[in-house]
């Protein structure tokens, strides 16, 4: 199992996340894509840590931090989505156009 496979997988997941981020109509789906992107980075870090840094495993430590922060971000994100849902009764991204050019 070469390093490149993990990196390719991570890159593919990252790209899927970006694609979903740009194209999603639901705010919750966008949040999921962001989580996907962060997990792709985690894969990257774990792979590098395993192959390049087996002694100090800094990458794995970094991964734990990223998972924690991603969870916090998701919590805050869902709270904001909930708040917007209470006011606007929708989470459709196309409908959020109060702030214009």
């Amino acid at each position, binding site marked *: 199992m070469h390093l490149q496979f993990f990196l390719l997988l991570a890159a593919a997941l990252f790209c899927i*996340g970006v694609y979903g*981020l740009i194209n999603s109509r639901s705010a919750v789906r966008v949040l999921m894509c*962001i989580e996907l*992107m962060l997990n792709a980075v985690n894969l990257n870090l774990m792979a590098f840590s395993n192959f390049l840094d087996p002694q100090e495993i800094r*990458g794995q430590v970094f991964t734990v931090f990223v998972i924690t922060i991603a969870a916090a971000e998701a919590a*805050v*994100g869902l709270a*904001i989505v909930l*708040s917007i849902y209470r006011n606007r009764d929708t989470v459709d991204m196309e409908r959020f156009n109060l*702030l214009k050019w």
Partner: protein
Amino acid sequence: MDFASLAAQLNAGAILPEVLVTVTLLGVLTIDLVGGRSTSRWTPYLGIAGLLGALGALYYQWGQANPTAFLGEFNADPLSIVFRGLVVIAAAVTIAMSIRYVEQTGTSLGEFIPILLTATLGGMFLSGADELVSLYVALETLSIASYLLTGYMKGDPRSNEAALKYLLIGAASSAVFLYGASLLYGLSGGETRLAAIGAALSTLTPQTASGAVIALVFVAAGIAFKISAVPFHQWTPDVYEGSPTPITAFLSVGSKAAGFALATRVLVVVFPSVLEQWHFLFAALAVLSMVLGNVVALTQTSMKRLLAYSSIGQAGFVILGLVAGTAEGYASMVFYLIVYLFMNLGAFTAVVLFSLRTGTDQISEYAGLYQKDPLLTLGLSLCLLSLGGIPPMAGFFGKLYLFWAGWQAGLYGLVLLGLVTSVVSIYYYVRVVKMMVVKEPQEMSEAVKNYPPVTWSLPGLRALQVGLVVMVLVTSLGGILSNPLFRLANSSITQTPLFQAVPPSIANSRL
């Protein structure tokens, strides 16, 4: 080993200012929890006091022999001290601005201040972070707290929308930044400390150097989001317009200063091996920001949106100092950020005051204000003229220093573009001044006609008044008497070890 020797070994004294801010944060939170709503009359002042205490601690940290702390995670060198000071001052003035504002909207001040202090903490740690993990954690602390602050006015749909936009775009940008950071981790063979990464990258062969450029692009995208450089600026006008105005002020100054600290440290330490590439990339960002920020600001009718686009343009000027690559260039960047802090916060304080009294944000509603509120008119005019670079205000000297440093470093095109866009910016700043000062009494807007009598007795308005007066005084006199600021900016660069390899300036020796 006991706590004291551990703390000494880790050089924990370097984060004393941050500890003070944390203590203040916990204090405000606890007091609000225990004491209830009535304590919100004085907890803001406790917050400001704590921040000023942190500022004092920063002052004492200057010139320490050993600034590295926590085994290389945090660096308390003079550069980080200046940027942490900027974030702290921005937070203090924001609290002063928000006392009355939050009261008037009916939301609770007791949670507002801890979240703002959390953002401040994130900004402070970001200015001194010297290692990928602490960098990311600090960045996210600042960002997540900012998302919450943007959406604080839960009843206002614009605030909600701004928070959602900010969150989604911000989270995506930090994911992109993180991807670049992971590539750096891999390219350097498993290093996370910035200095070690920089050293490892400089030993790359030309084939693998392209990996460094890819990492640079990802990292630059994350940085450009934070400093709202074009084309990563799309969130700025919407978020600035939708947020509560004091938070807009904090974002435009404190968050941006932290972003520039991040940019400086990462680019100078990690990427000297691809120096031309990142100079080129950021020069392009500077050009786009200066042009787009200033040109689009010409068409704005909302004051907050105008200030948002103006801050994009100003960020373009500051990037010019970053790209110059000489000690003069970095010093001019620091100097301009200090001056920008005061003039931008002054302008926002005046805007907050106006919106508290009239409830509107439209520029046309400012017509004829000199009749009803001369202090506000004078304050806002001086701050806007300073932003436009009119002497004798501090903004003129800041721009002069930036252009002089850029010229000496050979960035003739960027400097000429900066000069031209400065003239463009004068037009839209003077337009607001014209509304306030030039319009006749019979041309007064509805809002000004119904202007409430100017009183300062309501709780929190005194803080606004003090904030406005202090900001305006520094802006007007800080240019003429700016020698101390110049020396501060210069010594923050020359005394910081990471700039030792940087040439002082391309021209002959200067004092």
